[in-house]
């Protein structure tokens, strides 16, 4: 019984609410079905009559509306402020982290959180593409909000190693929109070999300084990218000149150090050096030899004559009485002076 009464009262209350909802407002004209159809078709434009038809003060509704005596019902408008859930500005959501760092980005500007509008993103992206077309070192920029903190597991060095080819020269930037001083920049190992730490710091510093020259966050980003590109161009130019200078030095040193020559070429080179003195020496030798030959021929035919001697004969010998020494060669032990036979045996004393 009690429950039945309760249900009845509740239904009456509900009915009252429903009736109250459908109660038409006395000041607003009700919509008819035809009006609704015309509205849907487009033939009826609400308020158009007001524009076409001059205001007729005799119209009752308007009279009522404009009459200061009409009291507009006061409505209580309740605005309930629903507090937004508290979000840590430093955090990057897991979903964003996955989108940022799961695979190699396809573009040079990675704005997966939609921090830039489309035209702004296109501008910055276009400049990074333009830079890539004129430079051998691409710049990939990951865009984050100013207060966001990138977890250590997704540090730029780690991402550079994971996502990009380590043999390719590349610059990876984590840019925090609105706070350029927090920008993180890493270079690939290939670049680190060529560019010193000081130069890398100067490189980043130039970009940050350019960014800080503007107050607007997007302008800061643009300036940062431009300054970075300019600095990269200057660095590339400097190393290109350095490379050319070193190549020139190598070529000069290679030219100074002759490539190994073949035996014949070596002999030819040696001959070129010694040709003159050798020829002069050979000529002198030839002249000397010819002179010696001529002298020898002259002396060969030379005759030696002695004065005529009118020597008397001696010991009854008509032609010769000259007696030279007599030498014995019986003994090889004794010297010739000891084997000199000067006196016959019968004249020698023993």
């Amino acid at each position: 019984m009690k429950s039945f009464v309760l249900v009845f009262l509740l239904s009456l209350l509900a009915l009252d609410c429903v009736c109250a909802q459908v109660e038409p407002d006395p000041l607003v004209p009700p919509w008819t079905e035809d009006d609704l159809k015309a509205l849907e078709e487009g033939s009826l434009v609400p308020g158009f009559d007001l524009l076409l038809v001059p205001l007729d003060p005799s119209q009752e509704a308007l009279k009522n509306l404009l009459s200061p005596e009409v009291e507009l019902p006061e409505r209580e408008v309740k605005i309930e402020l629903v507090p937004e859930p508290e979000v840590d500005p430093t955090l990057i959501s897991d979903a964003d982290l996955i989108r940022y760092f799961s695979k190699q980005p396809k573009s040079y500007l990675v704005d997966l959180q939609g921090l830039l509008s489309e035209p702004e993103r296109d501008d910055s992206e276009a400049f990074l593409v333009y830079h890539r077309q004129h430079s051998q070192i691409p710049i990939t920029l990951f865009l984050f909000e100013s207060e966001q903190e990138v977890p250590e597991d997704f540090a730029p060095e780690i991402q550079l190693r994971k996502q990009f080819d380590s043999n390719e020269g590349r610059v990876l930037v984590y840019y925090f929109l609105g706070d350029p001083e927090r920008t993180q920049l890493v270079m690939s190992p290939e670049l680190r070999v060529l560019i010193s730490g000081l130069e890398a710091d100067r490189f980043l510093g130039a970009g940050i300084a350019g960014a800080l020259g503007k107050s607007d966050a997007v302008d800061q980003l643009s300036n940062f990218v431009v300054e970075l590109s300019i600095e990269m161009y200057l660095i590339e130019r400097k190393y290109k000149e350095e490379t050319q200078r070193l190549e020139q030095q190598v070529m000069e040193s290679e030219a100074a150090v002759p490539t190994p020559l073949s035996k014949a070429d070596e002999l030819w080179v040696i001959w070129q050096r010694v040709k003159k003195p050798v020829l002069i020496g050979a000529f002198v030798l030839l002249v000397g030899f010819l002179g010696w030959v001529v002298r020898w021929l002259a002396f060969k035919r030379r005759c030696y004559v002695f004065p005529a001697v009118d020597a008397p004969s001696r010991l009854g010998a008509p032609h010769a009485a000259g007696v030279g020494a007599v030498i014995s060669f019986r003994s090889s032990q004794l010297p010739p002076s000891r084997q000199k036979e000067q006196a016959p045996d019968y004249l020698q004393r023993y």
Partner: protein
Amino acid sequence: MKCPRCVQRIHATADQCPHCGFSLSDLDREFGSSEVLLTKLYDRAGILKYRERRELSRLMARFESSFPQLFFSAYYEALEPVTNIRQYGFWLLNRGAFNDVDITRANEGGIMFLVDVAGKSATISFGYQLDDLLTSSESFEILSAAHPFLLQGQYMKATKLVLKRLIKLLKKQSSISSRKILEDEKSQNRDKVKAASLQRIRTRPTERGKL
């Protein structure tokens, strides 16, 4: 000058040695007084090869072309033990008739290198023309230089060396004697000029007197 037998000094014109009475006639009695036909290179002992003989002949010819008044002879023989090589050489150079020596070259200009292969001794004999050019000591030096080759039985080399040393010595003697001749000629010319000028001086006062 020495005696071939007793090797004592004798006078240049002595008919026989005053010490031992030696003369050529003593050797004629032993070896004969008639001429002995020889060649400049006489290898009676057969110690030289054909090639060596040819070479030696060539060298001897060259010697003769350099010294038109002289000739060189080499004689190799195994002499009898009693034969004295010095005397034999003396006799050979006087009685030898060299059929391959030009007739204009007399034995007076001959130099004989005699080698006794059996007795192992060697000597040099020379004609009268070389009395002033070659001494006993010089011949000993020449033979001493050839001594090692003689000891080893290399007679060809020994003869070549003897010839070479002789040539050297004779060339030196020739230059000395040429200088001497020139000086003599100069002094003779000087004397002649002096005499002519003196003669002119002597004749001049007579002319002055005439004037």
